[in-house]
């Protein structure tokens, strides 16, 4: 029962995420990961991504969270007296640095895995974050 509830919850969250985007159809299988995403114009955005391919860094699109690459301290700025890497509403491109997670004086860059617009910053500056904790949410960058 708990599992079913979780699945329904997850589906509801996914629906929320694609609402207002040009995604027409989204099919998801969990074991061995199969995700099919179809756009309004019928072209597939992603098809049959296996976990291995995902680890290989297949280009991600759509809404998603940028997660912490390791456990450490989250920083929004390169240095205390400098502006933040990104702010809510800002466009980012795949590979762009969006934050730092510091672990024992080693500054580990956090980079966006997709193009998008920063929808939310989920963590306060200076907060300790877990491995793979969502740090910020990216929404699709519109039609362009």
């Amino acid at each position: 029962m708990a599992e079913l509830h979780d699945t329904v919850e997850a589906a509801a969250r996914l629906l929320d995420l694609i609402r207002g985007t040009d995604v027409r159809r989204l099919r998801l299988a969990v074991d061995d990961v199969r995700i099919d995403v179809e756009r309004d114009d019928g072209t597939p955005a992603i098809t049959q991504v296996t976990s291995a391919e995902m680890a290989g860094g297949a280009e991600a699109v759509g809404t998603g969270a940028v997660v912490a690459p390791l456990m450490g301290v989250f920083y929004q700025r390169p240095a205390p007296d400098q502006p933040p890497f990104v702010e809510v509403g800002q466009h980012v491109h795949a590979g762009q640095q969006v934050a730092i997670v510091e672990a024992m004086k080693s500054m580990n860059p956090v980079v966006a895995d997709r193009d998008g617009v920063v929808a939310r910053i989920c963590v306060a500056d200076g907060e300790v974050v877990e491995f793979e904790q969502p740090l910020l949410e990216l929404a699709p960058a519109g039609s362009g």
Partner: protein
Amino acid sequence: MSAVRRMLVGNRGEIAVRIVRTCRDLGIESVVAHSTADRGSLAVELADRAVHIGPAPARRSYTNIPALLYACAKTGADAVHPGCGFLSEDPLFAAACGEVGITFVGPSPKHIALMGNKVDARAAMRAGGVPVLPASDGPVDGAYEARQAAGDIGYPLIVKAVAGGGGRGMRVVHRPEDLVPAYEDTRATARTLFQDDRVYLERYVPRGRHIEVQVLADSFGNVIDLGERDCTVQRRHQKLVEESPAPSLGDDLRRRLRRVAVAGAESIGYVSAGTFEFIVTDDGEPYFIEMNTRLQVEHPITEERTGLDLVEWMIRIARGEALPFGPGDVEPSGHAVEVRINAEDAGRDWAGSTGRVRGLRLPAGPGIRVDSHLYDGYEVPPFYDSLLAKIIATGPTREVALRRMDRALREFRCDGVVTNAAFHRTLLRDPGFASGDYRLGIAESLCSPQP
């Protein structure tokens, strides 16, 4: 006195569950630090809280010191129990906890470091009046020195990594012509395993018994021993079955071992739970091999015979309490035996096996305790050691305890993963084991003729 309100459990598997349970009993909140592979573990389920510290490989999660310290900072944990393995015998970790004001549930970094260096440990024990085997005078540098030392020690001998322990980083040499290859080989292994390629030579006792003594020491100089454990049933230097008391030890030798262990702990001012391991020769001479400065996998048989919770006493000692018992106050009674159920395929040279647990049935009933992290549907990950469950049988006599163990092994079922349970049933039927008079090599002799 340092209060312990929230404990970070820096380990996984059955030992993490074990620590969470004692925390619950003591009213201490528990936080389990876990890797991606252990997201759905029983310890995570049972703890008050969980922290995802890193990906599956242990060096990026369970042995990642910064990640564990950040996990304490994030969750407000004021103490860490390191369990067995991983960071439990890393003096840097113990020291780092101390520096940031977190209570490390274990001995001081100084004692961990002393016993982690097998050459220094031998020297300290010899100075404390503990018998040690003939050995090279410290680390051996080069083939020439190795031959010289071997000439003094005699054959067979064992080449051991200075930074080794727990059965890792050692090679037995029976003939002079095998010495130099074994020496080079052990150095290379030690370099890979411990980033320290120093090795030393020690006399090897081929048909000995492996007997260890559990001690408990507080920070006020009180040291007690909780009896011995016989860990002679080993395969490739890894323990498979342990029992207490040691069945073939006379009372004089038993008393001597226990006295020597207490003296050893006192001589270095040791604090916390610790184990002195000895090899006992056929003519009844005990020699120190190493000291483990942590909780041991086989601690439950001592708990069953003494009624003490060793995890609880480690925590109480770490928060500054004094032992309320003196020498002789805790006398173990009855007989206890533990078998380790490992995910190992005896048919494929004991290769580790993985899979999803189905049809799990854990034994129970009078005299049976099971420490395990298994549940139906649990996926055994390929990243860590193969221990799945410890079955502990207790009875007033060895005969009763072994009969209960036989009952427990008949009840035990775990489909989906290949285990070594069949080996244990073979062992119980072996006349040598049943007699109690068995030696190192018994496991290999039972395994070799069958598939």
